[in-house]
């Protein structure tokens, strides 16, 4: 036991030393030849979203930006998928080199990470239904004569939410507007369209990019509350962020950035100020001036927009394939992790029932701890905390390990119940025939318990297999995550819900049928 522990310690030290050797980010990035940049394609257009012709690949102005940026640094850009709110953790645990995904410049983030100069100046745009009589100006939100408070939708956790909550909270006498948070970029816009909300406050790129998808919405007033999107890198290593800044300044000066933004239709007058920032080169003390290139002006011939919303069979035809592929990930995750869960579960159950007294308490603790804490937290722990101790496990294996360990607790309880359901006389008869306890468990008790536990094990498997969706928090894209991503970028939620649900059902139903057969054949034996 002690030797094991010191071995683990040694391993940790070795890992830490290896990590320290690669601590110079720019050097290690140069060494790999690849610039990894993290974003969440679920966030949707125009930032990073699945291509409609090949939903496995991503597109968006940030994809183009990353590609151009990387080539300035003589690197290849590589997109790393992660949950939007988890991106700083991914940066911290060296799963990406930079964050590039509509991350606003905030004092809190600057305290944790190195920020680049801004690459986009966003503002917040209020939207309402065209021809609405209730909401035509910002002032309407303060109208104390209105019968009910106006409902405004925002993206949860965004700058828009903070702004709107402050704005609505200022009403002195009476609440005149109410803020409702949504998880998807365009959820609020859809709710306005259907009349459930009176208005939505969106970042200007989203409002502009998705305008064609929501023709019944109108912009209300001028955009408010400007802010900056910046690129973040790990703190303490200024070389990488300096290289990024140099590249951004050059892209701003020679109009390369403008070209990208015009392509996505998100160039506006505000962005002119990026040049001023680049020229002064003084953004939070960034001193270096870059060489001036020739200015490319004018937009591309064709602006990339979202086009009309796809509907019905088109959605099924275009996205079934990629959903099916993601279903494969779901199947692999569950099929690999469940046998491990069953095996650990069996040993834990046997240990608790027949093992020595000193073993029972820790095993009981194991089960209660794993059942009593959410799977998501356990995955976080393995994925984001263990790397800080020097143990970095790739996302895929983290998923397998996390699911297996979490479900081993449930499995052990099922096996324990199964073993306990076998009459005591069976064990006594086996012992009185000279069998050892272990042989009796193996030959007499377990074979009888199996038939009892098949149905609960199958339900547990189906539960696990749906729980694989939690793995999206550790950057794995499986069926549910793929659904969310596509639903955000296409707005064809109804069709996608139906396909996704059908895929889950197609996968779980055969398992249920198989289980009934198995039970039946066991009962016959």
């Amino acid at each position, binding site marked *: 036991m002690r030797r094991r522990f010191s071995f683990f310690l040694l391993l940790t030290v070795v890992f830490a030393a290896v990590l320290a050797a690669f601590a110079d980010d720019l050097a290690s990035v140069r060494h790999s030849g690849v610039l990894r940049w993290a974003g969440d394609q679920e966030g949707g257009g125009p930032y990073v979203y699945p291509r409609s012709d090949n939903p496995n690949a991503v597109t968006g102005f940030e994809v183009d930006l990353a590609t151009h940026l990387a080539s300035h640094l003589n690197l290849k850009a590589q997109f790393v998928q992660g949950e939007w709110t988890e991106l700083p953790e991914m940066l911290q645990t060296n799963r990406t080199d930079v964050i590039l995904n509509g991350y606003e410049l905030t004092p809190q983030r600057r305290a944790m990470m190195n920020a680049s100069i801004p690459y986009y100046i966003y503002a917040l745009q209020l939207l309402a239904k065209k021809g609405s009589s209730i909401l035509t100006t910002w002032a309407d939100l303060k109208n104390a004569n209105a019968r009910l408070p106006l409902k405004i939708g925002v993206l949860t956790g965004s700058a828009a939410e903070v702004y709107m909550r402050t704005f609505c909270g200022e009403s002195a006498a009476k609440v005149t507007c109410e803020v409702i948070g949504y998880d998807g970029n365009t959820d609020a816009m859809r709710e306005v369209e259907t009349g459930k909300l009176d208005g939505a406050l969106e970042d200007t790129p989203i409002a502009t990019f998705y305008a064609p998808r929501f023709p019944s919405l109108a912009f209300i007033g001028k955009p408010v509350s400007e802010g900056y999107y910046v690129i973040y890198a790990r703190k303490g290593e200024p070389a990488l962020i300096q290289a990024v800044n140099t590249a951004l300044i050059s892209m701003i000066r020679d109009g390369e950035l403008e070209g990208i933004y015009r392509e996505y239709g998100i160039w506006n007058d505000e962005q002119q100020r990026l040049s001023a920032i680049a020229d002064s080169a003084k953004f939070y003390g960034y001193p270096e001036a870059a060489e001036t290139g020739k200015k490319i002006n004018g937009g591309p011939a064709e602006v990339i927009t979202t086009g009309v919303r796809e509907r019905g069979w088109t959605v099924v035809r275009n996205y079934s394939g990629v959903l099916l592929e993601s279903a494969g990930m779901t199947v692999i995750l569950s099929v690999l992790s469940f046998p491990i869960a069953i095996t650990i579960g069996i040993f834990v159950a046997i240990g608790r029932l027949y093992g*020595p007294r000193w073993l029972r308490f820790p095993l009981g603790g194991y089960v209660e701890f794993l059942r009593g804490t959410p799977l998501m937290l356990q995955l976080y722990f393995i994925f984001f905390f263990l790397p800080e101790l020097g143990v970095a496990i790739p996302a895929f294996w983290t998923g397998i390990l996390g699911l297996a360990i979490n479900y081993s607790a449930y499995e052990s309880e099922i096996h324990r119940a199964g073993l306990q359901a076998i*009459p005591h*006389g*069976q064990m*006594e*008869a*086996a*012992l*009185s*025939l*000279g*069998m*050892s*306890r272990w*042989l009796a468990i193996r*030959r*007499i008790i377990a*074979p*009888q318990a199996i*038939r009892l536990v098949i149905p609960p094990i199958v339900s547990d498997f189906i539960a696990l297999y749906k729980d694989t969706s939690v793995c999206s928090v550790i950057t794995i894209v499986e069926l549910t995550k793929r659904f969310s991503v596509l639903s955000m970028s296409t707005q064809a939620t109804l069709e996608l819900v139906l396909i996704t649900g059908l895929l889950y059902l197609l996968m779980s139903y055969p398992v249920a049928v198989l289980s009934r057969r198995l039970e039946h054949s066991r009962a016959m*034996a």
Partner: protein
Amino acid sequence: MITAHQISKRFGQHEVLQGVSMKVEPGEVHAIIGPSGAGKSIFLRCINGLESFHSGSIQVGDLQLTPQTDARGDAALLQSVRKRVGMVFQQFNLFPHLNVLQNLCESPVHVLGKDRAESETLAMQLLDRVGLAAKKDSYPRQLSGGQMQRVAIARALMMKPSAILFDEPTSALDPVMAAEVLAIMGQLARDGLTMIVVTHSMSFVRGAANKVHVFENGRIVESGPTQRVMQSPEHPVTKSFLELTS
């Protein structure tokens, strides 16, 4: 062969055995009778280590069980005792997932390491002896109670034990089936098998037992050759018990 010396056992405050002693020579058949709750079954289970006890000792050949004997720590000792002393239970305890032949061969093959074919030959001989050769492929749930108990006896015999303990083997059976089982047991007694039998069947006691022990409240109140105890009981408990069961 089997010697129990001053066995005492408590469940909390309740003393279920209070200094029980018994000596069984090879080839003898001892019957244990007495009212329910007198500690008969508990005593029997102490002999092959299914129950622990608080004082006294049990000698099986050269093996000795004491209050210190630990189910886990002395697993090997207990296993050796159980290989020598088989047991037949009131509830039969056949293995429901195995057929009759498999029930018989399980332990010889997996505990003694015997060849399966050889075990099956022995099993068929024993099944023939208990009159169930035709049922070798049946599963326990397809058998009557009497048949199950006869299979259980054959299963105990498979280990070639020096002695077999019978814990109320016919109490769960109707009179007809009980008679089948008792007939087999009588035959085993005549063949010279050492047996300790807890039973309520006075006809079996009269016909097969060499000695009788009468239990009451965790003690042996009377003990002696069958003839003597049955015909001229000395203790009032024995007298009233015999009156009630005759």
